[in-house]
């Protein structure tokens, strides 16, 4: 393994050991809470649409909203400063502090202020800066960076915090329980809030029509920070502006649920500064509030720092819709294992962080963790503003790929990988991105290729040269491809006859079975099973030559290659679509690219046509059974099944079909509910991520080795999921099509 890969693997291993358990427990708790909370929310999808529309409109009109907000805040008696970058913002904030002769500034949690590193800037001037959010304060005491957008100390256990506080503050009685720690923090921080000269907050939303700062919190520290001292500085990215107070409504209902699974946080503050609340002046402790005549100061520091340029970038623009709720992080299987210290850059963490880091700090910062997004798409439906986060990550990966030096690779390698990419693309990425070429070669030379792939020196060489982990068994290629087998048994004409045999009256349905790379060259058995199951239900099959979908290059950030493949695939299928044939897809990740990413590559009409007429195999079979096909024509073995649905299949809402079909045919099904198997295509093969892949996989393995499931037949719909389960469990997994195949004997 290369030095860089080894270094990355070691860092991930370290985090898995030291922070993994706490991160896993907390993020999974938030994630489960979110599922439960949004399930109770009527009109959840409509609220998400509404929220997205508001953000789209606001970002579209951003320059005009900045002007409107500036006028509103100034009319209210505050000041607005639009800072170009962090240095500019910090310079302004330091001036405010200097003018107030501030010794102490209290601060409520704000990612934007983390982005600015304003604490360091103020401390350089001798201003003491105190974080008042309890989690943030723990990290300030520990001198660590946040590992999560909304729960910054998520990686720390109660015991660790107690050890930290006891060592740092030496309290009379050692602190132990969460209550004791909280009380201690409340008192310590309360003292500082009462003495502070300036309070700094962020803003979750800012309304242009009223100049209101909306703060979503639970502790109450933001409220105290904003109203106890006489000077309030709010820092916020320009993207936080929404046109009107009324526009905040859907976000109030979505943000807590999306983040921690709370229906709403304890406090949603709508502060229109300078606020009318009296200053809590402990230098005048006996003057009643109603006798005070305060002259409050308010400074709104709006931060550009790359955002206005992101707005002009057709792919990064969506990042600006982000409301920092952390749903993408909490629903991410990899994040659940390593947290934001691995899955984040200088400030932002989790799925959406790639977009933020690329826009705010540049691509090098995004490069540190961009590969941790496997494109599994589990975050897509969880985002309250419907940001296609995997797409942003893919685009950034593509741009990173293109940063490499052209021509550093040998001509021979370029020949081996007939993609559309420049020479600088990482050799490991190019290998996985060109898996079809590899599969063709492997199949044509099987069984020699398979034998070679088991040899130690070959595996060590592969690991060294391209980072394919030697601990992961490689797929075994079939000499006879699915298409060869299909032609040998008579092709479409024979399939038509077979389909007519049991059900002559329904023998007129005709489908194209999409021969994905894995089915065609590796797991040919599931392809054969698909043909037999369809025929048994009266459907005849065609298997034309169709190229790889583009999923493999897309995963590696090779967007141009994926784009080219999309056109090739459509060209190969167009005639069949014209003829009214449905396309049946076995591999969920290929169906997902047809349905989701092709809209970025194909003309709208073509994409819509393919999307409308392509089906996941079990979804299609479900439709046949619903329309009167006879389930008794299938294998009804009655085994007890442990079923794991592919992540992208779940995102498309297709997981229930497999389950229903199996139950229709008399099987008893228990389904996994972990986010992802941890394999996600090439990810689990990459040596730097092997351990993380296995750690994520353990959660699935745990579900399938529990007393209730340990003797069940393991069934998985995705290629990678099957491979991962085979590696994790001591029993082989099957594809549901094989379970249903009338030619399959009993297991």
């Amino acid at each position, binding site marked *: 393994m290369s030095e860089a890969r080894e270094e990355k693997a070691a860092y991930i291993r370290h985090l898995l050991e030291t922070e993994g358990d706490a991160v896993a427990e907390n993020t999974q708790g938030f994630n489960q809470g979110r599922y439960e909370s949004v399930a109770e929310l009527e009109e959840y999808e409509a609220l998400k649409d509404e929220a997205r529309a508001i953000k789209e409109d606001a970002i579209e009109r951003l320059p005009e909203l900045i002007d409107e907000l500036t006028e509103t805040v100034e009319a*209210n008696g505050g000041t607005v400063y639009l800072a170009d970058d962090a240095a500019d913002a910090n310079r302004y904030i330091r001036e405010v502090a200097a003018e107030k002769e501030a010794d102490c500034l209290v601060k409520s949690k704000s990612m934007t202020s983390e982005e600015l590193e304003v604490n360091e800037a103020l401390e350089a001037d001798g201003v003491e800066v105190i974080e008042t*959010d*309890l989690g943030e304060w*723990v990290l300030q005491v520990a001198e660590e960076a946040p590992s999560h957008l909304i*729960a910054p100390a998520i990686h*720390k*256990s*109660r*015991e660790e*915090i107690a050890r930290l506080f006891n060592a740092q503050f030496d309290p009379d009685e050692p602190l132990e*329980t*969460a*209550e004791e*720690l*909280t009380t201690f*923090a*409340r008192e310590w*921080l309360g003292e500082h809030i009462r003495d502070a000269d300036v309070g700094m907050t962020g803003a979750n939303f800012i*309304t242009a*029509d*009223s100049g*209101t700062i909306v703060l979503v919190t*639970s*502790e*109450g*520290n933001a*409220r*105290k920070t904003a*109203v*106890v001292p006489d000077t309030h500085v709010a820092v916020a990215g320009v993207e936080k502006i929404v046109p009107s*107070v*009324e526009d*905040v*409504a859907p976000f*109030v*209902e979505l943000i807590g649920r999306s983040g*921690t699974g709370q*229906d*709403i*946080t*304890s*406090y*949603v*503050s*709508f502060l*229109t500064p300078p*606020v*009318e*609340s*009296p200053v*809590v002046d*402990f230098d*005048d*402790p*006996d*003057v*009643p*509030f*109603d006798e*005070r005549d305060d002259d409050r100061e308010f400074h709104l520091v709006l931060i550009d720092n790359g955002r206005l340029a992101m707005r002009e970038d057709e792919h990064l623009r969506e990042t600006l819709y982000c409301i920092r709720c952390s749903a993408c992080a909490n629903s991410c299987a990899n994040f659940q294992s390593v947290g934001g210290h691995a899955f984040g850059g200088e400030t932002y963490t989790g799925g959406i962080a790639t977009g933020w880091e690329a826009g705010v700090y540049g691509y090098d910062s995004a490069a540190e963790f961009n590969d941790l997004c496997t494109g599994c798409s589990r975050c897509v439906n969880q985002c309250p503003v419907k940001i296609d986060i995997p797409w942003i990550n893919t685009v950034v990966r593509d741009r990173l790929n293109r940063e490499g030096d052209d021509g550093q690779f040998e001509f021979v390698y370029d020949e081996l990988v007939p993609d559309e990419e420049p020479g600088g693309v990482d050799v490991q990425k190019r290998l996985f991105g060109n898996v079809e070429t590899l599969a063709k070669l492997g199949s044509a030379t099987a069984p020699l290729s398979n034998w070679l792939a088991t040899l130690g020196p070959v595996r060590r060489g592969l690991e060294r040269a391209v980072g394919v982990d030697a601990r992961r068994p490689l797929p075994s290629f079939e000499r006879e491809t699915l298409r060869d087998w299909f032609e040998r048994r008579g092709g479409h004409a024979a399939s038509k006859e077979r389909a007519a045999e049991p059900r002559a009256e329904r023998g007129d349905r005709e489908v194209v079975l999409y021969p994905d790379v894995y089915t065609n060259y590796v797991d040919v058995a599931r392809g054969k099973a698909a043909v037999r199951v369809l025929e048994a239900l009266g459907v005849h099959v065609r298997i034309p030559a169709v190229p790889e979908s583009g999923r493999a290059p897309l995963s590696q950030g090779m967007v141009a290659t994926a784009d080219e493949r999309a056109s090739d695939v459509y060209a190969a299928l167009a005639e069949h679509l014209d003829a009214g044939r449905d396309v049946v897809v076995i591999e969920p990740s290929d169906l997902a690219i047809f349905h989701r990413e092709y809209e970025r590559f194909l003309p709208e009409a073509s994409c819509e046509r393919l999307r409308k007429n392509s089906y996941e195999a079990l979804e299609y079979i479900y439709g046949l059974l619903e329309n009167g096909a006879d389930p008794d024509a299938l294998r009804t073995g009655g085994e007890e099944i442990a079923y794991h649905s592919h992540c992208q299949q779940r995102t498309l809402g297709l997981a229930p079909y497999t389950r229903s079909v199996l139950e229709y045919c008399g099987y008893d099904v228990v389904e996994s509910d972990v986010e992802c198997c941890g394999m996600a295509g090439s990810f689990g093969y990459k040596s730097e991520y092997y351990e993380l892949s296995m750690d994520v996989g353990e959660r699935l393995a745990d579900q399938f080795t529990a007393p209730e499931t340990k003797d069940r037949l393991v069934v998985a719909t995705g290629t990678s999921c099957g491979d991962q389960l085979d590696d994790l469990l001591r029993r082989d997994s099957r594809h549901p099509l094989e379970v249903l195949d009338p030619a399959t004997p009993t297991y």
Partner: protein
Amino acid sequence: MSVETGAIVERFETSLAELDVAVTRTRPTAFESTLEEVVREPAVGTPLPFASVSLPAWVDARPTPATLESAATGVTAASFGIADYGSVVLPSTPEGAEQVSLFPELHVPVLRERDLIADMPTAIDRLGPRLRDGESAIVATGPSATADMGALVRGAHGPEAVHVILLEDGEVSDGE
């Protein structure tokens, strides 16, 4: 009380029960005795803008920083309540309602039944014009809380308990 009001009161009470927040419904005439049962002394408060009730003399209605800090209870008016969430909407006032609702360990929001509304969009529609007039308000739902110290703890920087007093709308003849 009309059927509609009845349903919304019930919904508000259910939401508060889910939050583990106490609520006492009372007639305006019994307000003082209800308050007496609810508060922990010493208590501070800010003037209630309702014609039917006012703060009794034993609630310090002119708090200072010193009395605010030593108070066990803060009594403030809520502009309205949101039935779906069990939230109370607390206006910020020059008398210090924001601080009084935040510093003491027990917060007692007082609101009228007729000011209960069903849902969040309605609440924010009502807030719009007020905020555009320069006002500020807090949508408060249950006590302050944190999970940052390894377990859920109530009473982080704000109150550890909330006890809502809901003022009945008064005598309504059966014919109405």
